[in-house]
């Protein structure tokens, strides 16, 4: 298990390998479909983003509302591929360090990740209650009108992640099932 604290350095990122398990502590920012659309609009209009993402980590999530007495509701990852259209430009323009989501990414995203040295982490989809226990602070930074899709600044502690695609482009979504099938055929199943 690898312990990482934000801001993560480029050398920490490049030392991570697909399949590594990581506990992340520090600051991360949330953004999903609607926030990405606004980022894109800002790029088109040559405006600055309301949040500086250089060296930061984006978490694709739309948490459920915080019940009374809780910091946040359930907060697991959403499917990352919906952000794929926006991601290459986002990586090139902002210098984003890493992304957290679930599910495979497009070849164009992986290419852009290798170019900028970005890492894609997966959190376990459908484990939003467990993940929320690792969020110790939450505040809205921008796009408040988007509700659950607003950009939140989260402080996390020992947030459990798996390196899905590393900065060399090695992809656990491809490698994991392939190795499993290979082992089955060795066993003659």
């Amino acid at each position, binding site marked *: 298990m690898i312990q990482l604290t934000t801001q993560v350095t480029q050398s920490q990122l490049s030392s991570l390998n697909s399949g590594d398990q990581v506990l992340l502590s520090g600051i991360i920012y949330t953004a999903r479909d609607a926030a990405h659309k606004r980022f894109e609009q800002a790029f088109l209009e040559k405006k600055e983003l309301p949040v500086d993402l250089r060296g930061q980590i984006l978490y694709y999530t739309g948490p*459920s509302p915080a*019940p009374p007495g809780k910091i946040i509701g359930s907060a697991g990852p959403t499917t990352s*591929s919906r952000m794929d259209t926006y991601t290459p430009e986002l990586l090139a323009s902002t210098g984003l360090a890493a992304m957290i989501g*679930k599910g495979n990414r497009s070849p164009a995203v992986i290419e852009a990740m290798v170019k900028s040295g970005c890492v894609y982490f997966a959190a*376990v*989809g459908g484990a939003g209650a467990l993940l929320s226990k690792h969020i110790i602070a939450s505040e809205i930074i921008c796009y408040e009108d988007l509700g659950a899709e607003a950009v939140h600044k989260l402080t996390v502690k020992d947030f459990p992640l798996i390196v899905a695609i590393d900065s060399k482009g090695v992809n656990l979504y491809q490698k994991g099932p392939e190795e499993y099938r290979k082992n089955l055929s060795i066993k003659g199943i």
Partner: protein
Amino acid sequence: MREIHCNTIVESVRQIAIKAAFDLPDDVLGKLIELSSKEDSPTGTVILRQIIDNAHIAQKERLPICQDTGTAVLFVEIGNEIVITGGLLPDALNEGIRQGYTQGYLRKSIVSDPLFERSNTKDNTPASVYYEYVKGDKLKITILSKGGGCENMSSLAMMKPSDGREGIIRFIVSSIVNAGGNPCPPVIAGIGIGGTADKACYLAKKALLRPVGSIHENQQYADLERELLSEINKSGVGPQGFGGYATALAVHIETAPCHIASMPVALNLNCHAARQATVII
């Protein structure tokens, strides 16, 4: 005729909407525990452990199992000896959803227009509702809280009758392999065979309601379900798509008569957080 007032329906729907979000059904949790003992991928084992812990945390702390508390899909069975008073049934169902999602601090995930405005209705209505008329003096309502991630991996094939059993196996297994980690495996595969294009999609969704571990009453379909489950769990997709045994918890088939020219086959996947709750009034 037995009278059922809309207020009773509103309150019952409110309660099952909240219950479904927090309490993973015992059959689903039991199967996850069973699969975690069979899982031979180390990453897969860690993931299944988190999924099981998550269900316990959600239940104990009254937090949603998943932040995507879904589209509220309601299956309503209306007995022929009841009369609903105090308003219209669809309005009562939606009011129950509105109250449940608001008072339970569940996420509101419905937008009013699918293409242009996409503005949130802010109370998770409208529910997607299916009605069936049955014998008796009861009203049975089941909520299937259906997440977007797994719903997006649904598919329909208008197959030729000659494609047969093998064609169906190829279509289902390749759809699940292509879906990879997106529908949050281990999944439940709901399969609708027959009817028309729309009917097959409905049956695939309805098939998700069957208890996990139950066996189809028709021997041929029971065999097909067993073979599909075995093939899916040999595909290697594994928990969250990272490789492993546990790709599916169950395969459920529903069928309907169909046209001589057709064999529609629909696949509707449910994520491992397969949430449903039922009330009988």
